[in-house]
């Protein structure tokens, strides 16, 4: 039976206005509202679709962040068999290196055949979770996946490229796939179903230990984009525009 693990995280909800913390290097968490990373939501949906189609077991795993319980119970209401919360110092935010290491440790214990996670998140400052996770687990990684099917110990995945190109490739399991979009939009779960899950299902808590953030980057300053009129539109055909670009690059000393 295929065991699919879906690591998910919460990211800042862009419905709220973002504010910079006094430190000047991070978002102000007091005004921040968190929402499930949209790509992770697609990863959950894809995992449930696979389970419905070819059987298997789905585990959704997530760091302990404010509001995560609701997300996990919603995943259970959709059909996840196991929901795991990593306990650790996640509240103030961490980097994706640390998060991927924590997910990797949990994955080593659980031994999934397939890991589906969102291909990216709006707070990915140090790269996305998927490739790190694959690296720490020594698995194959394919990103920008928009659909897959399972055939024995292989997955046939559709990977999206810019310009509407889609490649179909065969991946040996176990593997980590970065989901761009599930084959169908994430389903709606009625509130009463989620509430029922809150009564029936339980969240397994796994201690993530001390977080290892090494390899990540250090933010020296964070600021909101300033409104300015600095854009210059280049006109002409491709050759002319390219020539003008080269000229400008030389002018500002990057070439």
């Amino acid at each position, binding site marked *: 039976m295929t065991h699919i693990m879906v690591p998910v995280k919460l990211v800042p909800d862009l*419905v*709220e*206005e973002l504010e910079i913390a006094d430190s000047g290097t991070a978002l102000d968490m007091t005004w921040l509202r968190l929402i499930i990373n949209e790509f992770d939501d697609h990863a959950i949906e894809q995992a449930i679709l696979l389970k419905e189609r070819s059987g298997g077991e789905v585990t959704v795993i997530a760091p302990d962040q404010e509001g995560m319980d609701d997300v996990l119970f919603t995943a259970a209401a959709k059909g996840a068999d196991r929901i795991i919360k990593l306990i650790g110092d996640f509240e103030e935010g961490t980097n994706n290196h640390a998060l991927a290491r924590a997910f990797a440790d949990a994955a080593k214990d659980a031994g999934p055949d397939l890991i589906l996670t969102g291909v990216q998140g709006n707070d990915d400052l140090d790269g996305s979770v998927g490739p790190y996770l694959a690296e720490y687990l020594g698995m194959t990684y394919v990103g920008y996946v928009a659909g897959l099917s399972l055939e024995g110990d292989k997955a046939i995945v559709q990977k999206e490229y810019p310009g509407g190109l889609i490649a179909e490739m065969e991946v040996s399991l176990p593997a980590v796939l970065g989901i761009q979009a599930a084959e169908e*939009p994430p389903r*709606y779960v*009625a*509130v*009463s*179903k*989620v509430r029922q899950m809150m009564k029936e299902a339980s969240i397994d808590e796994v201690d993530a230990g001390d977080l290892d953030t090494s390899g990540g980057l250090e933010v020296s300053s964070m600021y909101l984009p300033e409104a300015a009129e600095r854009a210059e539109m280049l006109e002409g055909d491709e050759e002319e525009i390219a020539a003008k670009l080269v000229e400008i690059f030389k002018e500002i000393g990057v070439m």
Partner: protein
Amino acid sequence: MPERVNYWGIPHDWGAPELYVYTIMFGAALIMLYRFYLRASLWWKVGRPEARWDKLHIRIWKLIQYAIVQTKVLNQRYPGVMHVAIAWAYFIFFLGTALTTIHERFFKFLFGNVLFAYKFVLDVFTIIFLVGVGMAIYRRYSQKPKRLTLDPGFTFSLVMITVIVLGGLLTESFRLAVEQPAWAWSSPAGWIVAQLWIATGASDAVLTNWHLVAWIFHLLTVAGTIIALPVGTLLHVLTGPLNAFFAKLDRPTGELAPIPLTPDGDQIYASKLSDLSWKQLLDGDACTECGRCQDACPAHAAGTPLNPKELILSVRDALRADAAAVMGGNGDAPDLVGEKIAEEVLWSCTTCGACVEACPVLVEHVDTIVDMRRHLVIEGAVDAELQTALSNLGRYGNSFGKSDRMRARWAKGVDPKVKDAGREQVEYLWFVGDYASYSPTLTGITLKTADVFQKADLDFGILYKGENHSGNDVRRVGEEGLFEMLVEKNLKALSRSKFETIVTTDPHSYNTLKHEYPANGNGEWKVMHYSELLDQMIASGQIKFSKKLGYKVTYHDPCYLGRYNGVYDAPRRVIEATGCEIVEMPRNREDGFCCGAGGGRIWMEEGEIEERPSESRINEAVALDGVDAFVVACPKDVTMYADAVKTTGQEEKIIVKDLIELVHEAM
């Protein structure tokens, strides 16, 4: 003195004629009752239980009002007169027959003037009946309105009831032709027909024989019709009154029942026949197929797949086809939702209640539709737009997907600052609602409302970010869990606030706050629509007008204010107080036509439609003579009709105005 002779002209050497009559009639009645039992027992054998036995005196009154007097049938002139001419005539014939039995067996009273009056009334109703039948024939075979089911079953019923009455008339006429009594004038219809037989010059013996033939024919057709009644279209004679008797009494029209539970406490989502209550199944058998709901339905008029009549008949047909399979418990009965009733049919409903209002036998279409929608929601079968709206409502408390902190953004510049009812005591708590709070096109109207309140020195406040969507349409979409969550959130904010009365501009919020929110610990609040509050403030002199506007306007009744809550006059009085003249649209008050936004339709994909209900409504308004403004009393209506005025290209002819705009302008 003349006395009624029982069994005139029936040869007594056959034995007692009453023996034949009673045997045949009791036999027919028994067969009828047995066949009816077979049919009716499916309601409770297949359907789930539902308590509808309380308040018997009101139920009996409903029976009299809707099944005997037939007030709803009479709401439409031609079909109303047609139907009561037939039905009342039969009531009288039935009563007349019962009286002869009393006269014959218990108490002789049909002498002299009483007898003349008795005969006269029966004969007059024979004529009334024939007029009704004439109207029915014209309607069914010449007019053929679209809404009617033109099925041979109806023709059979019409023929049978006519044959019975003609048989009675013939019998009487032969007797009169033989007797030719001095009081023959008291049976005018029979006497006229008798002239025919007298003119033939036939002997008394021949006419008496013909009388016997007519009498036997009459007897047998009555018996035959009674036997056929439970399996034909005359079934409504029994089920219609039952449906009126078992009508919903425990809650106002604006209150939906919670999700029913099994004895074990599990929730029942209506997807199969057996998930419906016996009363919902009775609705199907009570349907007379008159099609009034179909005519009234905005979704049907718009060309969506929903036809309320077909929907109810789908339930009926499914019961007939699948009851055995359901009761056999072998599980191969097809699902109702999806197989017999398409999802799009259920999603097309605006829950405007026009069908329920129109139904002469009190079928409760909307409740059944919402029950089935609840099943679709729990299965996650919602369209993408609705899913977005519901997710937003769950997460942010509004369908716009905006931050709850932005809810009172519109009030930012209001001076003096609008009070926060969560912090200081107010007399009126203004429940602003989603559209008035978040829709950028409505901000002007919301500000004018605040301005009018302030100028009138109203002590009011709002909940700021404590307010959530009221949940009225969330509930009607079928998302009961989300509705409960929104109610909990709002109750929390309301219980923290001190106020006496809730006022809202939104009829949808008004409906659910008034009927579906449990009163909190501070006691019950009063809920007012702003039209009612304005009306009250104008009457008390708290609002004074400085000018008369002099516009000629028409007024659109919002479904949840009018049909659901009976508030028709307050907004009209307010409009008139501003010095405007109201010209009514043909569809007004109880017959008001929905804008198409209700029941969560405003959040759903539109689907394929021919004419939007809002466009039909605007076309109705511009057809009126010289009307400048289309006045509404619902924020969603402003949005819906402003769009419709544009899409119908009527910008030159009419403008949409909120009630508050008139008040503001006249102050």
